[in-house]
């Protein structure tokens, strides 16, 4: 793969993670367990969309021609998406939503920290901006993990189940795709091998505080980074892309 192709693929990976998780969180809009948390989660969703937009814009700029942020975001099919399987998993309940967010936030925080050192000026400036938001997201989801884990018997059981279920998707965070490996070699990507011990430590610390056990890895699910997604992504895209597909170029 040539340099430009690797960079575009890497940018898609970053942008798709944020957009798909943002879309998932947006499903909570108007359905949050309490008004304050409804707003909190939609704020996070908007932060993620903001980051994704910056990245899609950069992709459009690199590609040139008729490419726009919207065409990159809305006019690709499942196999062309590069997001982690974790972020496309359904909301199910508040515990699943929190655990998914927490796993991603820890990763995202260290990933953006690393990308503040990227040799690509655009990536660097996007990471600097996102890092402030990620810092808050991580605090927010950590506090929730602690409160659900160390809360009532019911909340403990619910988050324990979510933790064990979603754990299968965390190994993908640290299984590098060819693109990620090359992106590190070329100096613009984040090295996930360096992030791994930091992620594990932070997750351990919070789970301990939450009186939850650090799960064991039984099965691992991989493929999102190279376009092999769970059936979930198709449903997300169907909803998200409907308007642009039905009314091409629609604006509001």
């Amino acid at each position, binding site marked *: 793969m040539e340099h430009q192709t690797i960079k575009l693929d890497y940018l898609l990976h970053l942008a798709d993670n944020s957009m798909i998780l943002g879309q998932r969180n947006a499903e909570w809009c108007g359905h949050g367990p*309490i*008004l*304050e*948390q409804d*707003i*909190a989660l939609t*704020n996070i969703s*908007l*932060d993620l969309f*903001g980051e994704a937009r910056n990245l899609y814009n950069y992709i459009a700029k690199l590609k040139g021609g008729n490419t726009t942020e919207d065409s990159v975001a809305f006019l690709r099919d499942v196999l062309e998406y590069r997001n982690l399987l974790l972020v496309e998993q359904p909301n199910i309940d508040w515990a699943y939503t929190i655990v998914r967010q927490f796993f991603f936030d820890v990763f995202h925080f260290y990933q953006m920290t690393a990308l503040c050192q990227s040799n690509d000026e655009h990536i660097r400036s996007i990471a600097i*901006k996102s890092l*402030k*938001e990620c*810092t*808050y997201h991580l*605090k*927010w989801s950590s*506090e929730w993990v602690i*409160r659900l884990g160390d809360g*009532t018997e019911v909340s403990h059981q619910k988050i324990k189940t979510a933790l064990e279920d979603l754990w299968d998707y965390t190994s993908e965070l640290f299984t590098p795709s060819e693109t990620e490996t090359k992106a590190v070699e070329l100096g613009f990507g984040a090295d996930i091998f360096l992030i791994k011990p930091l992620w594990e430590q932070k997750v351990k610390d919070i789970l301990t505080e939450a009186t939850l056990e650090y799960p064991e890895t039984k099965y691992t699910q991989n493929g999102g980074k190279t376009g092999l997604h769970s059936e979930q992504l198709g449903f997300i895209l169907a909803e998200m892309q409907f308007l642009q597909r039905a009314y091409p170029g629609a604006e509001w």
Partner: protein
Amino acid sequence: MNQKEWPLWEVFIRSKQGLNHKHVGSLHAVDYDMAIENARDVYTRRMEGVSIWVIESNQIHTSEPNDQVALFESANQKIYKHPTFYNLPEELNHTMWEVFIQSKQGLNHKHVGSLYAVDVDMAIETARDGYTRSIEGVSIWVVQSNQIHANEPDEQDALFEPAQDKTYRHPTFYILPLELNHM
């Protein structure tokens, strides 16, 4: 299902230009950490704040609405009074209280300072003496100082900076269709 409500918290925000923490509203949260987070998300989305205080609503004591006239009118007459602060011996069990004054009906309660008192009644009395002579107050709130929970200063960046460039949250961001101008 357990229908227990989360406790209610009052939120006070200090804006960039403001010197005082002002009451902005209330919200529900399980504890003060979450109350601060919720306050950030609900009340500082448009760059309103640089500092947040939260106080559990039931910790706030208010001057009796019926006493309002007596409380404030008497102060008007005692023009010989001057704000005097004295250090009291610790043995007296004085605790520190924060005072919030609503200077006019319809305005929000604003933090004006603190004082020492042994109980609520004394705190309200002392607040009346110390803080309502120059400010035409209609309502006093007092709360024990240790009931105020503030955001950590090192969290300021993560709490407030992301709102800076979210211009889409401002009403001026939206360009309305021309037809709407005729409304």
